[in-house]
């Protein structure tokens, strides 16, 4: 029975294709820079880098299943990061010590999550109740959230949070960084929500056909709001992760993640039109993007080259999807024609 299940996952074409890509990238980087890439320090540093993109990709994926886009993920992440940084920085400034520090840390974490929830709700309510495309809504709210961050910080960087908090961003448990554990938990929770719960089923239905799901009695608006809410929480987690690792908060930190998150979600077999997503593929996509990124650094290819590759990769993946479907369509047409000939 168990064997049967493990075989079934290899029958999944998307999964196998992504697995092959990941292995190819891994092999290429290992051959090109064997002394650097295969070192354990490289894997540890990759473990510290993955969570940021991971959280954002989860946030993007959840919204993309509904057929929308969330372009405000990075702004939400940075805003919650800034709010948490202010609260935790207060502890350092006042010289609080002992258990009281934990009060500030927990307060900061809760505040960050609240920011994520509120921002997600704003996105969700507007997208669900008003006749505006999700892409435009989140583009505008992204500008607002980033603007609030700029107003709070006056454009400066907020830094210095308690060491008790940054410890989690820079240390590992059982060889795996704390934040990677957090990401793993988030991925598992997302997988369970998507594949095992009523909400997961509803969200996929809404993504494939909102009108039909409305007629089957699904509350489409509620599902949409929940999806954006989930996305907001993921962004807040990402903001906390950034704060724990870098000990700084900035309103325009890493704005390119929006594009990378879309890329990662699309590589992870998420249908851009909504309805489908595979967590297993997304994890592989995350790993392969990280291999590429680290590998490029070792080959001394700069950030611009990476950006070029991301764009190329996205277009190639989307086009491949088209060509494989076209191929299938033509083959089935030919089969039908042959069938008719035989019958005649």
């Amino acid at each position, binding site marked *: 029975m168990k064997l049967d299940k493990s075989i079934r996952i290899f029958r999944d074409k998307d999964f196998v294709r992504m697995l092959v890509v990941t292995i190819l990238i891994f092999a290429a980087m290992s051959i090109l820079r064997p002394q650097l890439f295969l070192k354990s320090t490289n894997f540890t540093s990759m473990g510290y880098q993955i969570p940021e993109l991971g959280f954002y990709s989860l946030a993007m994926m959840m919204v993309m299943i509904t057929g929308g886009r969330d372009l405000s993920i990075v702004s939400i992440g940075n805003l919650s990061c800034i709010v948490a940084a202010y609260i935790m920085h207060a502890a350092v400034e006042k010289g609080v010590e002992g258990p009281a520090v934990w009060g500030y840390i927990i307060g900061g974490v809760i505040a960050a999550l609240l920011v994520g929830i509120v921002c997600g709700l704003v996105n969700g309510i507007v997208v669900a109740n008003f006749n505006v495309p999700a892409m435009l*809504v989140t*583009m505008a709210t992204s*500008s*607002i959230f980033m603007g609030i961050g700029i107003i709070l910080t006056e454009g400066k960087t907020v830094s210095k949070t308690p060491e008790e908090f940054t410890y989690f961003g820079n240390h590992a448990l059982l060889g795996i960084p704390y934040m990677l554990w957090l990401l793993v938990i988030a991925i598992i929770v997302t997988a369970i929500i998507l594949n095992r719960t009523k909400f997961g089923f509803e969200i996929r239905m809404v993504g494939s056909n909102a009108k039909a799901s409305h007629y089957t009695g699904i509350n489409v608006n509620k599902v949409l709001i929940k999806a954006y809410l989930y996305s907001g929480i993921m962004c807040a987690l990402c903001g906390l992760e950034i704060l724990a690792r870098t000990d700084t908060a900035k309103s325009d930190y890493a704005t390119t993640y929006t594009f990378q998150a879309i890329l990662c979600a699309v590589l992870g077999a998420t249908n851009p039109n909504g309805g489908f997503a595979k967590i297993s593929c997304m994890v592989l996509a995350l790993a392969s993007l990280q291999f590429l990124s680290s590998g490029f650094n070792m080959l001394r*290819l700069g950030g611009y080259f990476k950006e*070029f590759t991301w*764009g190329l990769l*996205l277009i190639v993946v*989307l086009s491949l999807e*088209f060509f494989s479907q076209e191929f299938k369509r033509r083959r089935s047409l030919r089969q039908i024609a042959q069938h008719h000939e035989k019958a005649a």
Partner: protein
Amino acid sequence: MKKLLKTNEMLLFLLIVAIALVFGMINPQILTLANFYSLIRSSAIPAIFALSIMLVMCCGGFDMSFAMIGAFSSYVVMFYHTSNGQYETSIFAIFAEAIVIAVVLELFNWVLIDKLNLQPFITTLGTQSLLKGFLLAFISTQYIYTLPNQVAKLGTTYLHTATYEDGIDAQLHVVVIFVVVMYVIMHLILQHTNFGRQIYAVGGDVDAARRAGINVSRVRFLVFVIAGIICGIGGVMHDAVARCSLPLPSDLVGKELNSIAAVVLGMGSQKKARGSVLGTLLGVVLLQFITGNLIMLGIPSYFQQAVSGLLIFAGLIVQMTGSGRKLVRKERKTREA
């Protein structure tokens, strides 16, 4: 007359006038001729790019790469000429080269969107990233401050000069003529030619357009070609007005939302919202007027991002839900009847 008052363009115009009066009461400097000239100067380039994205949105497509394509084509041309010391190149040659590059890049988008039937938004986001990376990784990252002579001359040609109260000059830039000409031509194409009607038909319903005998692929091809021409002109104009050529001009790339918002503001809340040339122009002016005058109202500069975001957000909701609400009301009425 009553019909004219009801149009979205009239509404936008009245909104601009009202806001201008309120702003003028707070700071009378805002309503001077000099400030009007600087408003024109700051909205000229966004207006050109908004025209290009409007056209693409009219035919039901989407383009996130238009600003990058403009910047790319202009920078490549400037870089080629200045690094070879050809400072005497004719301005027509520069425009022609930039337009050719921009058209080729837009046609790349066209192939992906029309031939391969990919999601416009995600695909053009990919094109944008691809071009950005290609430009910076393989061509050059240096800033060009000495432009070819004729471009530099275009950048300092003024039609008229006005002075603020405190003695600072503001000039009516010659670019405004180009903008007006482009808008008039585009208006004529969209409203008074068969091709223009076909664009709206494709944007309204692709299948219906196809059944009506419109060659959808050809319409989209021409739309992307025209969008490319506009982007190429806009890129060179931007460099001329800015008096330098940067690989990633921060006021273009990453600020696509401003142009898109202007188009959406100009669309109006008809049953099937569609782009309007005059509406787009008014949308650009409205956004530029408000964001550009925040400092003169005494609002700190770090409020700008949030305020402009809020404005766009409010505008989007008001414009687009108007149509939704009306539709719902109409449906309810027909059901009751």
